[in-house]
Structures are given as C-alpha cells and as structure tokens.
C-alpha cells in the first residue's frame, strides 16, 4: 500500500478503533460490580477491560490526529483509479478466494457430509483460480488432475480425522 493510501486507511481505521475503545470503556463500566457480594472494589470484573479500552481510545486518537496531519482525511475518490483498482487481478483474486472459502465454510461445511463438501470446494477453488491465472478455463488434463486432487485430498483428510482421530465431522 502506498503512503497516501495508508494515510487514508489509517484515517478510517483510527475512527473505528477510537469508537471501539470508547465502546469497551462504556461496556466495562456496565459490567457488574458485585456490590451485593461486598467484593473488593479493586477486583471488579470491568477494571482491566476498562484500562484496555482507555489505551485503545488514546492510541486510536493518536493515529487519527497523525493521519489528519498527513492529509489522510482527503478521501476523494478518483473514479478512474477506483475502476482500475477494482478490476485489477490482485483484487479479483482476493475477492474470488474470499467468496469461495466463505461459501464453503458457511454453507457447505456445516450442512453437507465432509467427504462430499471438501472435494467440491477444492475442485471449484482450483478451477476458478487457475482460470484467472491462465486467462481461460483449464484444459482436460488440468481439470482431471484437479478432480483427482480434490477427491484424494477430501478422502484422506476425512479418513485421518474421522477414522484415525475419531473426530465426528459435521454434516454427515
């Protein structure tokens, strides 16, 4: 990330961090103080999170001020730059990886038997990312080896965890 881009990212993240720190302080103050149990006031559960919240607020505020001094507040978007950035291979690869991995973790893993879900995920991941790498759908041999890899990996991992280590995997 370039320094001007980092300044902008710091500006936004410092606002989030400061707000989070304030939230931690408020929530720490709302934690039970156990007066009815006559506990020592120095041992109340909110004391340590409260200190942490104070530090995060101050540190977030420090980065906020620093990012303002470095012109990080100037968030004007250049339309051409934004389009170039979104359509860059780097962003596309990250987005595709994120979508496929989250899709598998959230929808397939908890609901479909592991030995079916894992090979589907591996095959889709390989085909999608290799298509992006080579600019076209992989050829017959690549598809076949991807399929073999997906099935073998899925079955081996399933065997190791379910049969050797007796971990009952979900979905099955």
């Amino acid at each position: 990330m370039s320094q001007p881009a980092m300044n902008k990212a710091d500006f936004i993240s410092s606002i989030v961090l400061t707000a989070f720190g304030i939230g931690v302080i408020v929530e720490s103050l709302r934690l039970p103080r156990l007066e009815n149990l006559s506990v020592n006031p120095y041992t109340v559960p909110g004391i340590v999170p409260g200190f942490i919240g104070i530090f995060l607020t101050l540190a977030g505020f420090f980065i906020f001020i620093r990012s303002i001094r470095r012109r990080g507040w100037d968030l004007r978007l250049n339309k051409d730059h934004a389009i170039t950035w979104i359509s860059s291979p780097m962003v596309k690869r990250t987005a595709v990886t994120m979508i496929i991995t989250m899709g598998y973790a959230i929808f397939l893993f908890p609901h479909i038997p592991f030995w079916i879900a894992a090979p589907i995920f591996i095959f889709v991941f390989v085909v999608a990312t290799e298509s992006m790498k080579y600019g076209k759908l992989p050829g017959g041999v690549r598809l076949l080896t991807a399929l073999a890899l997906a099935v073998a990996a899925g079955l081996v991992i399933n065997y190791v965890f379910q049969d050797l280590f007796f971990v009952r995997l979900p979905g099955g």
Partner: protein
Amino acid sequence: MDGLISFATAVGSILTSWSALDVVWATLLGIIVGMLPGLTATLGVALLTTLTFKMGADQAILILICMYVGAIYGGSRSAILLNIPGTPANAATALDGFPLARAGKAGSAMAIATTGSVFGSFIGMIALAVIAPVLAEFALSFGAYEFFWLAVFGVLISGQLTSLDDPIKGWIAGFLGLFIATIGQEGIYAVPRFSYGSTDLSGGIGLLPAMVGAFGLAEILTVMRHEAYEAVRAKTDSVWSGIRSSYKYKMTALRSGLIGTLMGLIPGVGEDMGAWASYAAARQSSKNKEEFGKGSVEGLLAAETGNNAAVPGALIPVLTLAVPGSAPAAVLLAAMIIHGIRPGPLIMIESPGFVYSVVAMVFLATIAMGVLGLLLTRPLVLVLKVTRERLMPIIFVLCIVGAFAIASRTFDVWVMLFFGVFGFILRELKYPMAPLILGIVLGDILDKSLRRGLVLSDGDLFQFFNRPISMVLWISALLFILVTMPSIRKWMGRAFKPKTEGGVK
C-alpha cells in the same frame, strides 16, 4: 549432573522406541511446511496440535517441537530458491541466499543455511538446558506485581520489535489481543464479560482457532492476493563447499546463535527478530560489508543461525514463565496445557524431567533437520513445484477441520473465520500478528495479576513500581521503548554527535 542424566535418558528412550520415527517424519513435514510459501511454522504447529491431541503428552510435544524446528529451517529453501521466505523468519535469508542461488551456488547456499540452522539450534538448546532451570527457580519469587509487569513488558516489547517503523500499531495489536482475552467468564468471580448471553462466548475465545485463522486463512488470502511465484529453475552445485565456507565464519555463527537465543527469550519477539538482529550484527562487524545483500556467505549464515537459535530460546519462557517467546511457541504452550503439562515457575518442582525431555527433543529434531536437509537437498526442491492454486484449498480445508476438531463445535470455525479476515485486514494495515496472539495468551495473567496486586496493595499503585524485579521490568521496558523510538533516536543522535563541524574551530 542430574540434568545431563535426565537428558541422556530422554534421548535414549526416544531413540529406542517408535518415537524415533516420529522425529523423522515430523521434522521432514516441518521442513516441507516451512518451504511452502503461505505455510508458516505457527500454522504447521497449530494444525499438528489438532492432529496430535489424542496422543500421549510426550509423543505429541515431540512431534510439535520437530515440526517447529523443521519449519523455521525449511523456510530457508524457498527464500534461497524463489526469493520468497517460506516463513517470515527467513526474510533476512533471502537477501543473500537468492543472489547466491542466481550465481549458480544454490547447493552451497542451502548447505550454509543448514549448517547455520543446526549450529544455531544447538546454541539455543544449550541455553535452554542451562537457563531454564535457573530462570524457573528465580521465577518462584514472582508475585502478582511481577507477573503484571511481565505481561505488560511482553506486549509492549513484542509490539515494538515486530513493528519497528510504527510501534504504536504493534502496541494496539497487543492490546487488542489483551481485550480478546477478557471475553468470556473472568477468572476470579466467573462473571461473563462481553458475551451478551452467548454460551459459546462465555467460554472465551480459544487460542488455537484464533491462531489457525490469523496465521492460516489470513495467510491464504495474502498469498492469493499477490502474484504467483515462478516454479524453481535454479541450478544446484555441491553442498560440501557450502559447509566448508561456513566454517570460516564460526565466530559470526556463535554471535548469531547468542543473539538469536536472546531474541527468542524475549516474550513474543521470536525467530523473525532473531534473524534480523543477527544479520544486522554480522553486517556491522564484517570486513566485507559491501557483500551483504549481494550473496554474502556471512549474511546468510548469520540469518539462519539467528532464527533457529531463537526456537529453543523461545521455549525458555514457555517452560519457566508460561509466557511464549514467539507465535509458534504460543501454540506449543497451548498444546502443553491441553496435554496436562503445567508450564510455569513450578515446572522444576512438579516435573523436573520434562525440561530436559524438551532439550532432548530439540536435540534430536536438530540432528534430523541437519541430516534430512543435507541428504534431501535435490528431492526437496520438487516440493516448490506445487502451485499455490492447488495447495491453498487443501490448507483451508485443514484450517476448518483443525479449528473444528479441537472441541467439535462449529463456533470455533466461526472464530477461525473471524480471525482470518480480521488478521488479513490488520496485516494490510501494517499491524503485526505476533503481539495480538501474545496479548491473547497474556491477557489472563495480566487480568488476574493486576486485580490481585491492587488488593494486596490496597489500591496503592506505588507498590507496582518499587519492588526490585518489578522495577527492572518496567524500567527496562520503558528504556527499550524510548531508545528504539525514531524521534528519540534522532534527538540522541544530535545530542551525542561529536562537534566536528562548526562547533569547534
């Protein structure tokens, strides 16, 4: 003498059982994990913890230590052959290793890295055997105040050293880790904090799912974001010339081993700084400074000796203080607790033989690493032909199953996913991961120690500052932070600059 007998007994019992086979496969797996860009030592140890938690304690810890030692060494291969450090600890290795490989000396470079790693591991191992028992005895005098400062010292120093350009981001990462540790039932009155009625959150955030996410999924996203690495094509020469040229720099290796061990000892700093600090010291004292970065044997040797020396170094605080010296050591600490071992000041009283068993494990892992590294130089190069498009989905499946397998609950998978995405964003914003993890580990110690200390002192904060060990800890943390701050360094540079120009006529 008792220690030496315990060490010899442990070596003998491993070598005369099936555990000898565990040493070989686990170290080889570690080397392969370390070699593959995107797989770090932390992830390797974390995933293997999920695979070994049904084994006996000694066997599981042996396998994890072999993985740890092998992975830190294995990362040198991709650093030398691809100019991509296999683990962050091998970044300094790439500076001189890759130019050597490009000059047709890949075999020599790999041999230098192997020699340095073996030598560094042995220095660290000796330090582990000598320092751990003494430190454990010394730590018996630690009370709430000292443990509070130790936790603060660890988070601040780790944050400082892993984010030298912008220390405040390192400290923020550490404090975020401390906050994460406060989620769930607190340890004195069992009041749930920040769990909002969720029974899963009341149990707290597990260290292992968090680490698998922060070092697994986050790494997968980072690797896939960048350009693909090219398959290796470097020619390799004979490894023996590399061993001979390493011998010429034995003093550099000795110094790097000591620096690496020291870096390992400091909480949360670990192998990366072990390599960089050794590399910087070697360049500073070298007669051939101009060769550094262009294929210096001395530079490569220093970096690899330093990072592997930090491995046993990082185990010293794990065993004696229950404070990890590095991120992989944090997983190892969690694994020890899972297996019913209680690291900390009482270790030399409760299980004195265990410290020497760990020394024996490091010793055997180092020998296996050296032998496998030298014998399998050419076959291991083939591992680097695996493309990330085919490796990463398998790693992700292992991350999911590994997170789930610890307690057989889907909540840990969500924790892993959260830390993966959160860790990826933090990395992009230049926040280091090691202090975050150290914060999660030290959060409980800091919480209980601060509250106990306040009760003992009846709210008198002065008591936290005036005890001798506390004083050493807070003053050294403060001095270290001040000395490494860029603005203070600049000011000191100006204040102590000899008045040669303009000042004296």
